[in-house]
Structure formats: structure tokens, C-alpha cells
């Protein structure tokens, strides 16, 4: 998961039991809510975030964790920089999943 990126970032993964997208928050918990994600900028904090994410995968809480680059969105909150990550965060933009909340 070592990938060279710049700017603030957060850790994301899929939860082992149900596969849903989660983000690592400030308390070391994995949350479904991007707003709760722990955003880090300096090298030391990034290294810790990465270690925490890998540890959670080793502990079989999440699967395939990685860091993503985020940017501020009109002053309030953060959004992922990459298109794929924005889509992943938002959930499906079309289709029956929007209609059926099982």
C-alpha cells in the first residue's frame, strides 16, 4: 500500500464481515462515514495512519486497506481527489440499490 501521494489523506478499506466501505477515524475505529475519517498531513502522522490500517487488516477487521488523497471541499469537509474514490465513497449513483434499502 506504499504509494506516493501528496496532500492530506485518509485510510480506507472494506469491512471483513460485510464488505462495506469504511474509513479509519480519530479514535482508531472504522466508520462508514467519511466525515469522521482521520485526516493526516505530515509524514509521521501518515506513517502512523498506515500502520494502524495495516494492523486492522492483520487483525481481520478490514480487508485491503490503503490511503487515499483528499482535498477540502468548499471549505467544509473533505472529498477524495481521485474519481474512482469519489465514486467508491458515494456508493452507486444509479440503479436499484438506490431504491431498495435492504
Amino acid at each position, binding site marked *: 500500500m506504499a504509494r506516493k501521494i501528496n496532500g492530506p489523506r485518509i485510510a480506507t478499506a472494506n469491512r471483513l464481515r460485510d*464488505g*462495506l466501505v469504511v474509513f479509519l477515524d480519530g479514535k482508531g475505529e472504522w466508520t462508514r462515514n467519511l466525515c469522521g475519517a482521520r485526516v493526516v498531513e505530515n509524514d509521521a502522522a501518515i506513517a502512523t495512519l498506515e500502520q494502524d490500517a495495516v494492523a486492522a487488516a492483520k487483525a*481481520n477487521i478490514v480487508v*485491503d486497506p490503503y490511503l487515499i488523497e483528499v482535498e477540502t471541499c468548499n471549505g467544509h469537509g473533505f472529498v477524495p481527489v481521485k474519481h*474512482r474514490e469519489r465514486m467508491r465513497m458515494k456508493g452507486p449513483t444509479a*440503479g*436499484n440499490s438506490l431504491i*431498495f434499502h435492504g
Partner: protein
Amino acid sequence: MYRYDEFDARFVRQRVSQFRNQVERRIEGELSEEEFRPLRLMNGLYLQLHAYMLRVAIPYGTLNSAQMRQLAAIAEKYDKGYGHFTTRQNIQYNWPKLSDVPDILDDLADVEMHAIQTSGNCIRNVTADHWAGVAADEVADPRPYAELIRQWSSLHPEFSFLPRKFKIAVTGAAADRAAIAFHDIGLRIKKNDAGETGFEILAGGGMGRTPLIAAPVRDWLPGEDLLAYLEAIMRVYNLHGRRDNKYKARIKILVRELGADEFTRQVEEEFARIDAPQVVPPEQELARISAYFAAPEYQDLPDDDPVHAKAIAEDAAFAAWASASVERHRVPGYAIVNISLKPVGGVPGDATAEQMRAVADLAEKYSLDEIRVTHEQNLVLPNVRKKDIHAVWQQLMEHALASANIGKATDIISCPGLDYCGLATARSIPIAQEISTRLGDDARQNEIGGLKIKISGCINACGHHHAGHIGILGLEKAGEEFYQVTLGGSGDENASIGEIIGPGFSGEEITDTVETIIDTYIGLRDDGETFLDAYRRIGPEPFKEAIYATH
């Protein structure tokens, strides 16, 4: 339809309990994700963009009503109440929990279904003509052979770790409704002058980033040699297919690099030395399987039904739907009824649990309990008496299943794309919806005529865009989705690969572009000429001019 005997039932249950054990070990932490991934993939369980996805095989596209009801029940119990029918006669559930998957597999086993080999570098679900056994133009029914291949390829000890995935399609008719030329192996059943059954064999077709039309390998193979010959092809591929580069690992690259003649020579050499009794099932085995596909008890009916004729004459909406959806059956008085899963503006291939149950009820009541799933993401009731068609239509309407667009511009194939798929580069569903909405007017669709639009969300081409009359490939550049257009592809017996028309278009432009292409065709076509025929006659230039002149 094939029914599991005790052997098949135990085989599938063993596989489920093996996987249940593996899932438990994973959740308990005894297996790491690296160790578990290949095991889950061999049972059709992916981790997609937002969640796990389970792909269930519908072997050669055949279902009965009990199976369809179970698919509906699974959608409600473990998912969000719907399923997605794919271009490979599978159904996908987008939201299962890992811990539920063993129970889902047990529920599937209750109705003689499974998810074995719907993923991984093995022989995938065998597909076939969705009108098998009922098509008027059929030489022989491909289903017994497809079932034989399904059994032979299930957990095959030699061919479970191939260089890459492997897809086999079978048809028993001259018209190719199974896209056999785009498969790793394509099989066409033939009869010789003596009335014996045999096969024409193609190999090395495929889509993806290197689309290729399969090469002819054998013009005639006696039917009893089928498995031995498949084994020879698989062995040559397993030994010599490239393993150094994932994108060059399919058999199509081996066939292309060796040349079709040399590839065929190697296969024939292997075949000549195969110990046939090791491979070939005893004759009674094929007879046992074939017996399940014996024609159902059709009634002796006149081909013309007065009730149906009257309904056609009196009800214009019914007549319009019937002309798109109803196909000739080989038995007088019966018809094949196609059900569109492409409501205008809807998601291609999705069906809700309620719709699945409605189709199951119709199959039970009107189609001798049979349903087919097509690679074009639609459903079929293969055995409807002509006098019942009107009643079927009325009930389809109640469930939003009566779109009169089979084979037309809004009968769009689309893969899940970036709304679900972890490999996608762009969305495909919203593009399909927008094009469908734009072209959805009945008069407009009739004016356009037969047209196949196919959309993939990345170069893997699950949406078969290379074989679309109009193909659309979603890509990404600098954080923006854009769409490349190909024209002139076809997946039928005159297969061709679509040609890239030029630079791509943004998501906002693509629908306009498709309309421009269609209008250009309408302006230039000869009387009664289809889009594909017109394109083959006039070539890409007029389309390029029309599209790029306005940009």
C-alpha cells in the same frame, strides 16, 4: 431440464460445506485475506467497489420456476431485493455479507444451483443459445452437451489453475445467438449426411483489450469425441498459454502467436494420443443426460390460433409488443416469448424479487415451467401456447416487464461499470439509462429498427462493446469519465469487431453522439437496410464526418 441426482446433490453440498469451513476460518482469523482470496473466488465471491458480490451460475441459461423463486428469495433475504443478470448467463447479487454466503450457497443447493467456477482461472459457466431446444432453426439441442461440459469441467483436477479464465459457448443452430466466435472455445453442433451429430470447433475468440474472432480448429468432430477433444485443447493451453503477462494469458493470444494452423496441429497431436476411455463418458451417461432434455409434452395444436390472431388484430399495443418479443417455436401452436429487462430509462439486466416471482409464476402457468436467461440480459419463456400469449403480456405489464424493445435501440447491454465494479474506469449504467430515455419513444425505436448498443465500463469488455453495432467503452482521463465509440461490431454468425470511430466523448456528449450516428444511418440507409448492413456498405467515413463536424 436437467435434474440433479444423488451424486450431483452431494457434490454441491460438499462444496458448500468446504466453503463454509473456509469462511469460518477467515472470520476467525485462521486464514489471511491472501490465503482466502483464491478460495472465495473459486466460489464466485468477489470484493467489489462497495461490498462483496456473489455471482451465481445459471448453466446454459436454463431455470425452472422454483429456481427463479429461490433467486428472488435470496435477493430479499440477503440482498437489497433485486439481482443483476449478466452477459454470461449468471446472476449477481451486489450486497451479500461474507458471513451469509455459505447460507446463500445452501439455499441455492436446495434448488440445484451453485456458484462454482463463476470466477477464477478455470473453466467458467458454460453458455448456450437461450432458445435451445425450442428454436425453429435448430439442428440439435445444445443443452445435453452443455450439461456434459458443465459436469466434466466442475473442479477439473487438471484445469483449475489455467493461465487465465476460460469460457465455452455452445449453439445448435446456424444463427448464432450464443456469440460463439467471441469465446475461448465456440462449439456449433452439426449433422453429417449420415445423420450423425458432431461439432464444428472454434478457438481463440474473445473481447477484452485484444478483441479477436475465434479461429476454426475443426470443421467436423464426431459427437462422442467432444470431451477428449476439449481436453486436448485445454492441455495445450494449460501447458503453453502465457503466464508472464495477465493481459496476454488468454488462449486467444496463444492461438494468435502460434498461428491457427500450428495451434491446431498441436491440439490434433495431443488428441491423437489421448487415452479416450479415461476421458469419454460411457454412452449411457450422455443418454442419461439427454433424457432430461427430451421435449416436454406439447399439445397437438394448429399453428394458427384464432384467439391470438384476434388479439393481434384488435389490440395495437399488444401487436407492437408481440412483433418485438414473440419468436417462432419449432412446435406448431407454440411460441417463444422474450421478456425485456430493459425498461426505458432502467438498469439493463436488473430484476426485482417481485419481477422474478412474476416470471416464475408465468413460467409455471404458461411455459411448461421453463425460463431462459439470455446473454443479452433478458429473459425468455420458451414454451408458451399462442393462445396464452395475450394473457402473458397482460401480466408482464403489471410488473413493468412488457417493454416492446427486444433487439431495438433501447435493448442496451451494459455491464455494472463504476457504479459497482472495482475494476471500472467509468460508469456505464447511467449512460445506458440516458441513451434509453432519449431513444425510448416507440415511433423513434421503430424508425431506427434493429440495433445493438453495448456498453462496457472498462477495457475488460464485459458489456461486449466490441460486438455492438454501436459500442461504447468507458474510460477515465484526468479524473473525468469519457467514452470511446466503436461501430460495426457484431456477435452473431457473421461476427465482426467494432472499429474505433475517433477520439472519445464526455459523459454529457455521448448521448448526442449516439443520436448523430443513428440519424446519419437513417439518412443514408437503403430501403429496409439495417444499421449493421448500412455500416458495412458505407463504412465509417460518413459517421466520422457527422460526429466530428459538430465538435
